[in-house]
């Protein structure tokens, strides 16, 4: 009797769970909603970091800043243009070193105070003190108040990514920050279209449209960011209509595409995953060995195995869409394509006996990050086909960074987005960033590269910049301190009754409910 019951129950459980794994076409059938009070429900996959923009660069938190704060200008990557925000207009000196901004009339902070030139100077000076905006303020020499409506920014040297970075130096209320004792980790008082109403970093953040916003009032009045760490639960919440927009895992794409009430898209992103070699280690001192490994890696396989096909495949260590990057067609000839013969020949040339098993130590990797761990696993398998034995060395983030940036490794799979400008190259390859956390971990000094990095960031002519970064890319391929293994895409899904504009940090004020 119990056996029969047990079998029945097991069959029921199987049906129950298989049905749950299948696609879904159900929608929110609760009827028409009153959009005036409807809140836009968003989800982030981890707790928010402190809200002070000068302390860190957490992506979830940054998304909130983009709604709450504004810079003097906003750099629109989709249109590649500078959009006036707190500043209404500006003048640039002939030598590109002095930028004079005229502040817009009627711009208010969320506490009701009007924005003054003093607030702008205060915001820049505060940004120059904090660690998070190091690159943003690197070229700024001083910020002067000319009069109540005019502010002047003087640069130490010409700086091509100035406009991009300027949009992330947020204008803050001096009075508010001072009243908070400098602690704005759980509060924000910006000039953006949304003002925060509730903050719990571990649970979620709520915001409402700012009534005194100088621009067009946002169509969506209330926004809630919910912290939902379980990706499967978040996906179901999106399908049930409890969430409106969600960044989804690659494995969820087909399921979401099959859902008639959802739309699936790709958010612009400039992420790169790469395999870094420790050029100071005995194994990888010789450039031929690094090049050999690069020829033995098949990035097409990695794109399918690790990113389920949702990745752009090239071996660049910087995203080709960054401002200033050379045209990809010009770089084709220098790319590493899968060529085992060439790879093994280079290894023989470097003194390895390729007929015997070769021990290449370990690959440092981060199991908690799918797009870093899976490529490492695939690379391990690809190298094993050619008698190269490597072990995976998985660590949690803090230890991995400690080893990586302390030079205590042979190979490691890393990744990141280094701003939206090609000058980010220097962050991971420049000798000045060597050994710094998040900086260069390959320990290869090339004076010519350092010179070119300095020229690239200072050159204001885009075509000339492309030439410079083209040369940098060629040298990078030749030196091969790292080899790119793909640029993952960021897949998102949203309810069809929300009209969205996809950006790297979407602006909710551009969105609306359509039903």
């Amino acid at each position: 009797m119990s056996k029969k019951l047990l079998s029945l129950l097991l069959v029921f459980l199987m049906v129950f769970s298989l049905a749950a794994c299948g696609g879904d076409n159900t929608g929110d059938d609760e009827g028409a909603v009153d959009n005036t009070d409807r809140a836009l429900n968003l989800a982030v996959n981890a707790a928010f970091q402190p809200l002070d923009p000068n302390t860190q660069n957490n992506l979830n938190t940054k998304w909130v800043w983009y709604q709450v704060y504004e810079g003097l200008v906003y750099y629109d990557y989709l249109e590649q243009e500078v959009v006036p925000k707190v500043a209404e207009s500006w003048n640039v000196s002939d030598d590109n070193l002095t930028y004079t901004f005229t502040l817009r009339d009627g711009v208010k902070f969320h506490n009701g105070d009007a924005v003054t030139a003093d607030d702008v100077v205060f915001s820049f000076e505060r940004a120059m003190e904090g660690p998070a905006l190091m690159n943003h303020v690197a070229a700024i020499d001083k910020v002067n108040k000319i009069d109540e409506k005019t502010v002047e920014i003087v640069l130490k040297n010409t700086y091509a990514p100035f406009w991009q970075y300027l949009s992330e130096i947020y204008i803050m209320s001096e009075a508010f920050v001072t009243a908070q004792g400098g602690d704005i980790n759980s509060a924000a008082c910006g000039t953006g279209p949304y003002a925060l109403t509730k903050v719990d970093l571990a649970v979620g953040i709520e915001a409402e449209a700012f009534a005194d916003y100088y621009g067009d009032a946002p169509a969506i009045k209330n926004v809630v960011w919910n912290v939902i760490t379980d990706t499967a639960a978040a996906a179901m919440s999106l399908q049930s209509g409890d969430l409106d927009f969600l960044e989804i895992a690659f494995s969820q794409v087909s399921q979401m595409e099959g859902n008639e009430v959802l739309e699936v898209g790709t958010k612009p992103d400039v992420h790169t995953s790469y395999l870094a070699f420790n050029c100071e280690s005995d194994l990888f001192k010789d450039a031929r060995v690094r090049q050999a490994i690069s020829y033995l890696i098949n990035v097409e396989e990695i794109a399918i195995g690790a990113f389920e096909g949702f990745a752009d495949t090239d071996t660049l260590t910087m995203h080709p869409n960054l401002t200033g990057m050379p045209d990809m067609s010009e770089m084709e000839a220098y790319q590493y394509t899968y060529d085992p013969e060439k790879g093994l020949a280079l290894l023989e040339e470097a003194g390895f006996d390729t007929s015997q098993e070769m021990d290449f130590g370990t690959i440092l990797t981060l199991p908690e990050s799918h797009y870093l761990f899976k490529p490492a696993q695939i690379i391990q398998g690809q190298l094993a086909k050619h008698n190269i034995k490597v072990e995976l060395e998985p660590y949690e983030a803090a230890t991995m960074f400690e080893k990586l940036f302390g030079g205590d490794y042979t190979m490691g799979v890393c990744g990141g987005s280094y701003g939206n400008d090609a000058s980010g190259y220097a962050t991971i390859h420049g000798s000045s960033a060597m050994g710094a956390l998040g900086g260069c971990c390959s320990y290869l000094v090339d004076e010519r590269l350092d010179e070119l990095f300095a020229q690239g960031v200072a050159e204001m002519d885009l075509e000339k910049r492309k030439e410079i970064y083209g040369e940098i890319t060629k040298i990078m391929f030749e030196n091969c301190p790292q080899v790119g293994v793909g640029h993952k895409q960021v897949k998102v899904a949203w309810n069809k009754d929300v009209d969205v504009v996809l950006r790297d940090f979407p602006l909710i004020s551009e969105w609306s409910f359509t039903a």
Partner: protein
Amino acid sequence: MHKYFLKRIVLLIPVLLAVSFVIFTLMYLAPGDPGSAILGASAPPEAIREFNESVGFYDPFLVRYGNFLKDLLHLDFGDSYVSKEPVMDEIVKRLPTTVQVATYSMLVAVLVGVPLGVLSAVKQYSLADSISRVLAITLTAVPFFWLGLMLIYWFALKIPIFPSFGVGSLRHYVLPCVSLGLTYAARELRMTRSCMLETLRMDYIRTTRAKGAREKTVIWRHAFKNALLPIITMIGSHFGALLGGAILTESVFSIPGLGTYLISSIRGKDMPAVLGTAMVLAIMFCLVMLVVDLLYAMIDPRIKAKFAK
């Protein structure tokens, strides 16, 4: 009884000290530093070092542990590295949610598990017994986060009658508490069944039946009351575990309780928050167990008699 009560209270001190030492040591030995976790990988090394120094990260182990104990005596867990708010405030804010989840889940567990356990024992080898046992085994084997996901799928997505995440109304608690409660119900069911079976075989039960007592009286007044002692202990320890052990369920349903706070604090290397939350959970567990022991002493005449001498 007072002596017993005092003895149990005094015993809490070494237990809590040991817990604090273990948690502190584990956090001390964990790799990484708060500066890198909070300021991010792109922060300059000097800023990270400065941050670590400001929170006493480089102090020797005993100094840090001593400071922690000193603050613990005042129930002051310091300020969170992340939110900069006092950890105690954060805990107080989240504690009611965790207690609610634990209480409702326990209610589900007891209301489902205990009656089914009694039924299963009284009707041993019947269809009802078989169903109960298969149910108990299945629910014990099923992880509660999986059960949670299945419940979301069926009752938030397919038949949208309950919200899939968050708190706010009683409806929000239904799915998490049912998923958690059913898992514990299976354990209560098995425990109740075995205790009842043991009791029902006792001589005094046979005597009661021989004296002509009604079956209902035999089961509930004589058998169930005596079988209750180990069941109460188990329910108590399960309630204690639920207070701190609902981490996965809180995570699946995004419930703003102590579990989610603990997880996010561990990820963010927020040592004061981790230590504070873990200590509060340990204290709560000890207090629940203390209540259980006292209840046990009140119900069990043997303990009452021992300390009455």
